[in-house]
């Protein structure tokens, strides 16, 4: 028997989730109080899971590294959240949302999981409205929808350009209500530093209080990781500064498989890099592609003149502009999926048509929409995004086109989970961006919010309960068990080792070095030679880190450099795993583009006969290479074809 069993329920696709819910095990109310659930992270997945499980009566401990659960990076999601409501009556359905997600993911996700996601999408919108989330409405008082990439229907619900903020505040408020009722205990400014296994099952964590530096032990009947993605391995990304992959690495090193680590999304519309001191990149919502048109100059000499400051975008005549997405993909135009849009921008810039001082930028132009709809309408739709752009770049996007370039944004890969969102470690679950399950090789816009809330509000409350039903016989342990003592000792030793290096390099300088390797070799265009080089270079950075990093201060009390160093050590492991996975996957699919595998038109060329599987990497110890396991992807409903957005 393979170690990998997705445990998809039997039955027709549309009945699987209903069948599951009808037959799962339940826990009676008096037992729920006796069961402790540890949830790491307070983003959409973590906060919604903590709130929902608290409401059900479980005893929840919820952790976050920020000063408040409301800060989690879900808050920064701008554009919207998908659901199959079909309110606009444009032909949408649960099946179509399912199909678009499978296709958008380039046929590398599971049918069963994705169908469940589409099924629960409508309940999410109902739930959020009931919580008082102020979604955009039409004059008749009903909810408004907009379009997003990879779909020909309008199924995206939104709250100005702050949808993530409003959904997260909804979940946060539901969570704080449970804190008030005593079902959830919050631990802020507290970081998971180790997962504790007892008899092979996840039964607790070691955490570090980021203010006092103190290590703490926590027992749980189950542990849920909802800590988001690992895009900050690239140093520059749209993630928050604190976003990190350390919880995933801890899980991986304890035996949970890491699935599809190379599947990462480079978002096409971000504000370009301005210089050396750049600390992060700012996303400009995909929703802007509803009304903005992407172009570069048709003539190379115009592009050169723009780069040297002799010409302005507004001086290029209409006939000398190349709206390359509309030209290449007439059916979807500016609304092609993110991976396609990002590669197309890179292709034009690499060919010498890029704009901006660096030549690594393309235009996103609202001129024709402003002419058609008026500035007021554009302001209503995107006002806060335009303001944000102006504050950063010091240019008015109502007058001159925005400049954008792709940037690291989201990781589809993550900890492997089965249909119940359980990892290969019993009792350890992963939700939201932290798991790998629903987006395959590319995530569609407005689907991250959907997945985070689906996992937290509507999936885990069932599947976790099914697991906990068998845990009612496990008594609450004291944290003096040897497994806790040993885990805490190992953490202490690791921190002591880091503090003891006393080298010369700052954490950030090493992180930037890693980021450049990732961007150059494990970014939008990957090839065999480059990936082999990347693995060598990452190994060298790892060696340099462990022999020459400098962390001032000491282990007790607050030490921000120590926090960063500990996270960087884990990003280095992730970087290595991403490169290995990308090297192994000899095909192009979604966000994973191997230059050796492309169609004559430069589109991604999958190798379904060889790679229609999920890559699951098993940790084999510090000195050994990880072992690859495969979960075959079986498509019973959808036929795998080459994606076509033309």
């Amino acid at each position: 028997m393979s170690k990998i069993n997705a445990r998809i329920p039997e039955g027709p696709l549309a009945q699987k989730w209903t069948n599951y819910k009808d037959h799962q095990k339940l826990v009676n109310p008096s037992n729920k109080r006796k069961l402790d659930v540890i949830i790491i992270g307070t983003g959409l997945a973590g906060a919604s899971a903590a709130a929902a499980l608290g409401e059900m009566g479980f005893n929840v401990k919820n952790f976050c590294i920020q000063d408040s659960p409301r800060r989690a990076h879900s808050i920064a999601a701008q554009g919207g959240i998908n659901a199959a409501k079909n309110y606009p009556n444009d032909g949408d359905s649960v099946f179509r949302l399912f199909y678009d997600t499978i296709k958008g993911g380039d046929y590398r996700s599971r049918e069963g999981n994705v169908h469940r996601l589409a099924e629960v999408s409508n309940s999410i919108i109902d739930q959020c409205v009931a919580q008082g989330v102020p979604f955009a409405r039409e004059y008749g008082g009903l909810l408004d929808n907009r379009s997003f990439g990879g779909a020909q229907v309008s199924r995206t619900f939104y709250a100005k350009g702050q949808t993530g903020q409003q959904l997260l505040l909804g979940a946060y408020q539901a969570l704080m209500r449970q804190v008030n009722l005593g079902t959830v205990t919050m631990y802020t400014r507290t970081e998971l530093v180790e997962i504790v296994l007892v008899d092979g099952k996840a039964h607790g964590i070691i955490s570090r209080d980021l203010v006092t530096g103190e290590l703490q032990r926590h027992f749980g009947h189950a542990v849920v990781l909802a800590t988001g993605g690992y895009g900050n391995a690239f140093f520059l990304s749209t993630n928050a500064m604190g976003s990190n992959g350390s919880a995933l690495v801890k899980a991986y090193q304890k035996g949970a498989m890491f699935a599809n680590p190379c599947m990462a999304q480079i978002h096409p519309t971000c504000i370009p890099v301005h210089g050396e001191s750049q600390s992060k990149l700012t996303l400009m919502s995909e929703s802007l592609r509803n009304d903005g048109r992407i172009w570069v100059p048709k003539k190379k000499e115009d592009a050169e003149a723009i780069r040297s400051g002799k010409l302005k975008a507004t001086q290029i005549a209409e006939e000398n502009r190349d709206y390359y997405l509309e030209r290449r993909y007439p059916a979807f135009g500016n609304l092609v999926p993110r991976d396609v849009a990002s590669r197309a921008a890179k292709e034009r810039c690499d060919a010498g048509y890029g704009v901006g001082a660096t030549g690594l930028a393309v235009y996103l132009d609202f001129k024709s929409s402003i002419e058609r709809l008026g500035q007021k309408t554009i302001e209503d739709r995107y006002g806060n995004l335009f303001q944000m752009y102006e504050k950063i770049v010091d240019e008015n996007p109502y007058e001159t086109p925005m400049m954008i370039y792709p940037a690291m944004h989201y990781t589809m890969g993550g900890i492997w989970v089965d249909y119940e969102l359980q990892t290969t470690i019993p009792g350890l679950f992963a939700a939201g961006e932290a798991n790998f399950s629903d987006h395959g090789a590319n995530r569609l816009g407005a689907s991250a919010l959907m997945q985070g809330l689906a996992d937290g509000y509507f999936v885990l409350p069932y599947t976790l309960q099914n697991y906990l039903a068998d845990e009612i016989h496990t008594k609450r342990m004291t944290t003096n068990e040897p497994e806790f003592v040993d885990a805490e000792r190992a953490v202490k030793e690791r921190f002591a080792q880091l503090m003891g290096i006393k080298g010369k390099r700052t954490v950030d300088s090493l992180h930037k070095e890693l980021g450049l390797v990732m961007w150059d070799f494990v970014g939008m265009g990957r090839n065999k030679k480059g990936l082999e080089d990347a693995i060598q270079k990452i190994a060298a950075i790892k060696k340099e880190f462990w022999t020459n990093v400098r962390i001032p201060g000491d282990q007790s009390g607050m030490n921000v450099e120590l926090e960063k160093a500990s996270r960087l050590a884990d990003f280095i492991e992730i970087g290595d795993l991403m490169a290995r996975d990308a090297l192994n996957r000899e095909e192009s699919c979604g966000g994973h583009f191997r230059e050796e595998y492309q169609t004559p038109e430069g589109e991604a060329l999958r190798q379904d006969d060889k790679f229609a599987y999920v890559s699951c990497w098993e940790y084999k110890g510090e000195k050994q290479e990880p072992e690859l396991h495969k979960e075959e992807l079986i498509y019973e409903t959808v036929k795998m074809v080459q994606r076509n957005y033309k």
Partner: protein
Amino acid sequence: MEKLINLTLKVWRQNGSKAKGRFETYKVNNVSTGSSFLEMLDMLNEQLVNEDKVPVAFDHDCREGICGTCSLYINGRPHGPDDDVTTCQLHMRKFTDGQTITIEPWRSTAFPVIYDLMVDRRAFDKIISAGGYVSVNTGGVPDANAIPIAKADADEAMDSASCIGCGACVAACKNGSAMLFVSAKVSQLAMLPQGRIEASRRAKAMVAKMDELGFGNCTNTGACEVECPKNISLSNIARLNREFLYAKFQD
């Protein structure tokens, strides 16, 4: 166009909540005017670590102006000398070559300093916990379009809901009042039919918690509105007062 400037920084350093704080002076050179204020602080910290000194601790996370984590009193203004931005969105083009910049943490009884420029804002979570929500459980709710809401009301609720919980309003207020923060949440939920049902209960509970946590009284100076990075309007406070009085009359 972008250029490089040299700066003198006077930064508040405090080695823990119980320690005595002091200003330290640092020089940071060759800062690009295209950099953000926090990127300038990153440069300072890189410099300090290279000198084997402990870097300055400050709160920050998304660096997109939405998470509400960053704070800082810069030259006497919360979030510094630009309008409608958080500190992470403040750019160095707002400063001149040779300028001295004073950087302090939020100063308020209800937000004690934790370390250097970091403060403890958990009081805001406690206020929300006291009643800043609609009391619905997950599942079993009506269809999202079952209750139409006038667009104007939804838009106004959205404006109130834009609050990022950064605490600039409290820091700007001479009384250290949290009225703008509390009123924004009370208003958002009171304007929507889903939240209207509990409006009185919510207003009373949140105000009581605010008072209990040591925030000061509102004397309508309006400093909070001026410094709010998200333009939360004073009219929210008027609405809160209305809700609160109405609730008291009902008692």
